[in-house]
């Protein structure tokens, strides 16, 4: 990747400085350095030499067709998968250890999946509570915070329901509440509206953006919906495992 391209992929200083300290101006919240991911001894290439930085407080959309590598990219950013080569840097520090990633996901990174991924034997309240298990909070505190979050996502009347008894939109709201349980500074959302009808998709998106604004979280949103992507501060386009273009700001992004 050329130096010019690398500069284009760096976050805008304005967004970063709006929430960060002086030190954080130059330190991305998370950065991928020349990250590649291959499978089957290199015969399948999911990501090719990706360089990408996301600043604290930034809202970045990652767009691309199915199979373009979007989800692989998010998996690398969440530490679900390890790059075949390259580095993932969190606030200036290289992260390459399973324990470091576990701690980050518990304390700093929230994740929302397209398929909701709730635990089927737990109620909505418990699905949110469980994300706080092992964080040092008391059971009562976990329960209180989970109830508050479910109220925030409009599910205070559905706390005791098991996932199978909830609609798709409700399940995704529970998943969003769960992702926010530990007050993350980075929220990764992998096609969060992909399995919802248009009305629910719009509602969930608005909820996600509202919560993100309130908490000042960094949001990385994977989507194939250009309209949704256009609401981001920055759009990163992925094709064939590579960043293929990234306009500065969202003004050049298709709407």
């Amino acid at each position: 990747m050329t130096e010019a391209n690398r500069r284009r992929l760096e976050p805008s200083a304005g967004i970063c400085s709006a929430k960060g300290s002086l030190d954080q101006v130059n330190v991305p919240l998370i950065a991928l350095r020349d990250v590649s991911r291959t499978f089957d001894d290199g015969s399948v290439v999911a990501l090719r030499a990706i360089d990408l930085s996301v600043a604290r407080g930034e809202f970045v959309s990652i767009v691309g067709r199915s199979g373009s590598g979007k989800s692989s990219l998010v998996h690398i950013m969440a530490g679900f998968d390890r790059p075949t080569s390259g580095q993932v840097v969190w606030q200036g520090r290289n992260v390459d250890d399973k324990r470091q990633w576990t701690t980050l996901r518990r304390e700093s990174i929230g994740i929302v999946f397209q398929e909701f991924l709730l635990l089927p034997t737990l109620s909505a309240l418990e699905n949110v509570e469980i994300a706080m298990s092992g964080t040092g909070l008391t059971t009562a505190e976990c329960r209180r915070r989970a109830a508050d979050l479910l109220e925030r996502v409009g599910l205070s009347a559905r706390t005791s329901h098991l996932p199978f008894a909830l609609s798709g939109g409700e399940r995704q709201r529970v998943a969003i509440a769960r992702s926010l349980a530990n007050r993350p500074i980075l929220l990764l959302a992998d096609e969060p509206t992909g399995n919802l009808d248009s009305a629910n998709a719009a509602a969930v998106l608005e909820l996600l953006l509202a919560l993100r604004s309130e908490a000042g979280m960094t949001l990385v949103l994977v989507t194939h919906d250009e309209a949704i992507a256009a609401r981001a501060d920055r759009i990163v386009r992925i094709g064939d495992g590579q960043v293929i273009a990234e306009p500065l700001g969202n003004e050049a992004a298709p709407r």
Partner: protein
Amino acid sequence: MTIATLALRNLLRRPMRTALLALGIGLAVATALALLALSSSIQRSSDDSARERGADLTVSQKGAADLFAGFVSASLGPRIAAIPGVAGVAGELVMFAPVNEEFQFLTSGMADESYFWPSMPLLEGRKPAPGERYVVLLGDTVAKAVKKGVGDEVSMYDHSLKIIGITGYKTAVNRGVVFLRLEDLQELAFRADQVTVFHIALTPGMAPDAVDQLKQKIEALGQLSVDPTDQLFANDRNVEVLNAVSLAISIIALTTAGLSVLNVLLMAVQERTRETGIMMAIGWSDGRIMTTIVLEGIMTGLAGCVVGVPLGLAACLFFNRLPVIGTYLSFRPSLGIVSPCVAAALLLSVLGSLYPAWRAVSLTPAEALRRA
């Protein structure tokens, strides 16, 4: 929401499978419990039996592989009785003898001068008169098994013996013994002038040092071994073999239970691979995920013990009352047997859950989430 709650929910999502696993562990615990109760009861029963009859020491042939294989000359009785500190000597020929060609009962031939005769309790009938030949007294469980009473006859080694009394002993061993005069049993079994053991009653209040000196004096009479009655079967080859077999079967049963835990949890973990991926995705450490699975193993093991201990105790009770078993064997469970069975079941449940737990966290979150 605690780890324990999650583990319990995981188990309850497949209630039938969990119940069957717990039942399997329970059967293994019950088997181990009954077998260990059986093996431990032999020594305790023989001790109780000797105490009931008033014996402190037992003299047997030195180096005999098992109690019944050793023989001592009956003529040593008076010499042992002459040693200071010996309050009573009871020479006894003990063997399993055929009764009515259908049963094998523990049979005791006791010398006329044995101090056991005067203290023998009777439910009915009488004891043999001096010189009276070919008469027997039956323990009450023997009488029930052969369905004979006072006045009836039983056969032993093709000889008819008249039943003159039913003994009223309380211990399981003594209740299952056929008693007759030593002279008669020696003749019937071709064991002239032989006894299996001498039981010795000590003068009350003897100091341990004096008992040791007495034992040395008796052992000096010949190739004799003198043991406290509670150690009578301590070196008995047959009992050692029975103990070893019981222990081996118990270990096999409990190990099978542990392997069942491994198998079922491995299946459950594979079914829940995606859920494990979710746990990883929300920041659960490998340790917490493994702890949840090990807790599932412990809970299953506990459930197995809850089923198995009462089942084992009930089996012991049932076997004791079943004439075909209870006549020969005594199952006496105790806390000292229950505790190691429970501990072993829980330990094997933990061991059985470790591999599935390790398997669960061996995948990356991405791999786990990709599984359908």
